[in-house]
């Protein structure tokens, strides 16, 4: 049902009218206590953002702009010092307990003592699903990320790109409606990164998940997102929200479109202001 809508280019107006809000930030601020009696650091200041169901949102900005902090607030790994943050009309902590989101960290963080299959099954074991169901879901997802032949390999037998695929499959294993990704492809080479970008879009379209994606790469943000959130540092604020009006499905040729380059330069100019 989602993919039907995605056949048309997503514009900001379409998003606004058609979809319910899943993640809502209302004047959220985050102040880290300083070291010792030192001054506290304001990592995020008065951030307000509505994210609609099925959106692909990228957070981009220079180091220290608070994009990872923002992601961690949504994941309830941090708690805001001011403002209100709700996920499907519930506080972030409740959303976490309800397993509303899957988290994909920067490093794949797989467990060396578990095979690929068992790594993907881990969240399901914690959620006490029975063995047959765990196996069914894990094999489904590993097929989705293209690791059908690697069920019984150990993480250290896989390349970096494959490890990230396992990490994504694991985050999706319990069918969360939201996927939070913290620079998951940052450590990969350009070729692998582009391939995984394409695969991620496929996954997004088949599962209909809402994705928040933190990245350092402007082309990556433009290629993937329905909206790019550009952030500025000290204190972290939203500087600009840019709807990406490139048509889906985005393919190899998308990277050759003049509009693609226009959007990249637009964001680059925007980011240059903070230097």
């Amino acid at each position, binding site marked *: 049902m989602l993919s039907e809508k995605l056949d048309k280019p997503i514009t900001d107006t379409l998003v606004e009218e058609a979809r319910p809000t899943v993640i809502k930030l209302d004047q959220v601020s985050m102040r880290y206590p300083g070291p010792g009696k030192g001054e506290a650091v304001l990592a995020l200041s008065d951030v307000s953002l509505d994210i609609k169901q099925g959106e692909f949102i990228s957070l981009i900005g220079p180091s220290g702009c608070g994009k990872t902090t923002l992601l961690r607030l949504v*994941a*309830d*790994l941090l708690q805001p010092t001011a403002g209100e943050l709700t996920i499907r009309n519930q506080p972030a902590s409740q959303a*976490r*307990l309800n*397993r509303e*989101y*899957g*988290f994909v*960290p*920067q*490093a794949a*963080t797989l*467990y*060396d*003592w578990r095979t690929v299959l068992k790594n993907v099954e*881990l*969240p399901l*074991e*914690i*959620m006490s699903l029975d063995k047959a169901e765990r196996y069914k879901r894990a094999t489904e997802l590993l097929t989705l990320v293209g690791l059908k032949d690697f069920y019984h390999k*150990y993480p*250290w037998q896989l390349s970096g790109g494959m490890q990230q695929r396992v990490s994504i499959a694991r985050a999706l294993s*319990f069918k969360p409606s939201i996927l939070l990704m913290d620079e998951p492809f940052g450590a990969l080479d350009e070729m692998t990164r582009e391939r995984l970008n394409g695969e991620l879009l496929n996954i997004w379209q088949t599962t209909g998940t809402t994705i928040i994606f933190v990245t350092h790469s402007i082309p990556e943000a433009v290629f993937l997102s329905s909206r790019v959130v550009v952030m500025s540092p000290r204190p972290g604020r939203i500087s600009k929200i840019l709807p990406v009006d490139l048509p889906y499905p985005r393919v190899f040729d998308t990277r050759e479109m003049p509009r693609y380059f226009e959007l990249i330069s637009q964001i680059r100019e925007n980011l240059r202001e903070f230097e």
Partner: protein
Amino acid sequence: MNTLKATQSNIQPENLPLVAPSQAGGWQRGWQKIWPPLMIIGLLLIVWQVVASWLVNGLEEGTFQYRQQQSLLPAPVKVFAALFNNLDVFLEAGRATLVNAFIGFVLGTLVGFGLALLMSQSRWVERSFYVYIVASQMIPVIALAPILYGIIKEETPLKITVSAYLTFFPVTVNVLKGLRSVDPTSLELMHTYAARPWQIYTKVRIPTALPFLFNSLKIASTGSLIGAIVSELMGGNEGLGVLILKLQYNAYGVSDKLWALIIEVALVGMLFFLVVSLLERLVVPWQPEYRKK
């Protein structure tokens, strides 16, 4: 060009067993590993035999002077003869010591693991326990054994207690370190799964601590054996320590037996260590050192 290519593809390492030792027979590889230590042992035995023979040169066997000289360094031939001539007594003593050391080892491991789990709960618990645990290890076994003997008075429980006492400390220290060595991102992931505290232990913390546990078990394997032998030196009916004590009263007479006994102690210790190492391979095969390329 084509022929050159064909020849090149024929010369693969697999076809050249001499160049690729991994493709050679198993015995050949095994021999390559074994011969350096064997050669050293052989050389050592020869030197030992020569020196020992020189020490008793010209003395008549059985005389006091002979025995006095022999106690400096009994010949390996004599030592091994003593070992084989008394094999039944030696083996029985070895069994008695090993069994009790092993029971103490298992108990000490359980206690040590339990303490580590408890101390990993909070820094506060850790701080309150750690001082006493470290202090406990500052008492030399040789001083502790008689104190415990005064309390326990029974031979077997004493041995087990001392072995356990020497085991729990390395286990606690290492396992605590292991439980705390979990990648912070792993813990964050568990948090996002809304895992319960005990699940974090069973799924992440304990598996992470297992290689640390085995490291401590290797240390404790020889430690527990020493513990059992030292407590046997307090007197008793059976065990390697008892045998050492008995032989010591004989002064110069039995230096070959004493040396044979030390060799047995070393072999039993190595056996214990080996068993723990094999167990490690079975229980924690994912460690980098066991990975197949």
